[in-house]
């Protein structure tokens, strides 16, 4: 049996992971000899920590350094070359105001980049198991009428129905307005967007810093732009325009370049500030605005349930509201007896587990993961055509330990409506789409596409049972099941985060 052959391979892989992590566990048990570890060192997301956990950024920080360099160079040139002239000929208040603005911009940028955007810590194994039990129970019972699939919970907020989605990576039902950032691999509360210029996600805790950063940067660029122009004009009044330009390159070699940078920055940054001012005044996030979650185009009586009704209250709430504490406690020390969150860390090497939870290295965890993978893969067929469900139905009788949980799930509720036309067609094995946004796409796809996926899909379910034929497009190489699971989960969350 295919699976039987592969089980030792899989076990070897998990054993490897376990032994690799026995060193942090040894570290924990030998705490007296070594310094105790802090929680940021085993943080499961794709973040980078500096200064012993005080600073938290995304993995890709190159663009952030570019932002810093651009701001500092442009301001530096301004202070070095234009300010002496302006201070002596106009007023010394100019460099002072410029200096204050510059420091404020820098402060807000660093604050936005270095702070925790509002990351939701992942569920502990007990919580995840409890939720899974509840969802499996919901799967089994049949109810009359419309019920949302178990991976989605509905809440009525302020008269508006909001769907809370289950995050496969973090194993939680996301709070309203939270979203999973695929770049940082974290769920972030009140997720706005991931900003590469800032090198971090923008979420509940650092949105005001981000907004103040772009607002003050707009003022700074307009300020610099205006006074550089003033400088050139004043000079040209004295010695003629061409002479002024000639003098500038000669004595102030980069004035022209400064103007160009400022010009483009001004328009883009002022535009961005304007956009975010609009978002704040209507209490929306970039994410919601892009998806059109609250636009009346979606439904006639669609409105934003989080808005306070008037612009002033919305602005005050966003900018002067209470500052929530970080939930991830990154500088706390790891207690050996507390449960650590489950992680799908993609080969970063750390698979957090304590001695109490070595079951994660078990086959059981592998089964759980594969369960999700196959269930998600199987549901597009089951969702769109109930007749297919009968045919594709429960896998044939040859049940293995893998087929067991899968067979109970295969005819389950269509919990993951998918726009994927066929399992083999898309590059990703799984896609997860927001049913509201993409159900039209799904329905469009399903009638024509249904017959073809039955081919590869019918291979999936018996595969679950026998581990038999492999659809070449399936990419299911048992030896690399871990990486496949990582990929599929990542594909899943990437698309669900859109």
């Amino acid at each position, binding site marked *: 049996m295919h699976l039987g052959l592969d089980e030792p391979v899989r076990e070897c892989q998990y054993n490897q992971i376990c032994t690799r992590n026995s060193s942090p566990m040894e570290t924990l048990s030998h705490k007296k000899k070594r310094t105790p570890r802090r929680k940021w060192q085993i943080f499961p997301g794709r973040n980078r920590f500096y200064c012993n956990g005080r600073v938290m950024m995304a993995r890709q920080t190159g663009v952030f350094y570019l932002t810093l360099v651009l701001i500092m160079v442009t301001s530096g040139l301004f202070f070095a070359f234009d300010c002496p002239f302006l201070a002596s000929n106009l007023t010394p208040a100019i460099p002072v105001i410029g200096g204050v603005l510059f*420091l404020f911009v820098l402060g807000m940028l660093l604050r936005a980049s270095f702070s925790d955007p509002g990351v*939701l810590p992942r569920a502990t194994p*007990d919580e995840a198991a409890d939720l899974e039990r509840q969802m499996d129970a919901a799967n089994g019972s049949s109810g009359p009428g419309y019920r949302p699939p178990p991976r989605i919970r509905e809440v009525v907020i302020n008269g508006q129905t*909001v769907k809370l989605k289950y995050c496969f990576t973090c194993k939680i039902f996301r709070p*309203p307005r939270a979203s999973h950032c695929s770049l940082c691999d974290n769920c972030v509360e009140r997720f706005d967007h991931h900003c590469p210029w800032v090198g971090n996600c923008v979420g509940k805790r650092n949105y005001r810093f981000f907004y103040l950063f772009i607002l003050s940067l707009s003022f700074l660029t307009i300020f610099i732009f205006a006074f550089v122009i003033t400088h050139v004009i004043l000079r040209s009044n004295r010695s003629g325009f061409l002479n002024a330009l000639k003098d500038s390159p000669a004595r102030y070699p980069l004035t022209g370049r400064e103007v160009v940078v400022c010009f483009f920055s001004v328009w883009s940054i002022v535009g961005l500030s304007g956009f975010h001012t609009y978002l704040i005044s209507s209490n929306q996030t970039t994410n919601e605005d892009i998806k059109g979650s609250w636009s009346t185009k979606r439904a006639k009586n669609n409105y934003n349930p989080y808005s306070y009704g008037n612009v002033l209250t919305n602005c005050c709430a966003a900018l*002067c*509201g*209470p500052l929530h504490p970080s939930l991830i406690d990154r500088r706390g020390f790891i207690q050996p007896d507390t449960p650590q969150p489950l992680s799908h860390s993609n080969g970063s090497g750390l698979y957090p587990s304590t001695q109490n939870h070595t079951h994660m290295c078990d086959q059981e965890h592998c089964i759980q993961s594969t369960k999700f993978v196959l269930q998600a893969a199987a549901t597009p067929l089951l969702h769109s055509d109930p007749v297919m469900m009968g045919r594709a139905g429960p896998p044939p009788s040859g049940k293995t330990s893998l087929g067991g949980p899968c067979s109970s799930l295969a005819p389950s509720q269509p919990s993951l409506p998918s726009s994927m036309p066929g399992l083999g067609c898309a590059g990703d094995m799984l896609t997860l789409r927001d049913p509201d946004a993409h159900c039209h796409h799904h329905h469009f796809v399903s009638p024509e596409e249904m017959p073809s996926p039955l081919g590869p899909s019918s291979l999936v379910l018996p595969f679950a049972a026998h581990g038999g034929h492999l659809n070449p497009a399936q990419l299911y190489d048992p030896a690399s099941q871990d990486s496949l699971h990582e990929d599929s989960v990542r594909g899943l969350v990437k698309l669900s985060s859109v």
Partner: protein
Amino acid sequence: TRHSASLATKVFIQRDYSEGTVCRFQTKFPSELDSRIERTLLEDTVKTLNTYYAEAEKMGGQSYMEGCLACATAYIIFLCMETHYEKVLKKISGYIQEQNEKIYAPRGLLLTDPIERGMRVMEVSVFEDRGSSGSSLSSSATSGGSAQR
């Protein structure tokens, strides 16, 4: 003879999002705890915690003042001062500790401060006395036992 308590199961009280993103926990009584504690006691605890959280997140004159002052000092002021939210969180953890000592520990339960679970859930750990032969206890433990690995 002393009984040693072992962890039988954990019951999770989930967040209640019906009022938006503010921190609130469901006051619905979990059925697994029926035999362990009176409904009203747990509901009172949850309701009190909900009022604490509402106070922490309240947007009124005080929070605006704090926000504006912090912005004016470029947030440096938080190096020396605690935010209002953090103060309330300290009150909450004191309250939970007191509730545990007075009400929950005598019943073999333990409340975990939600902040330690990322404000996702309120975890109620159910302990079972080893060596005590309460059949109702063991049945409630096994029914939730699948959660325990």
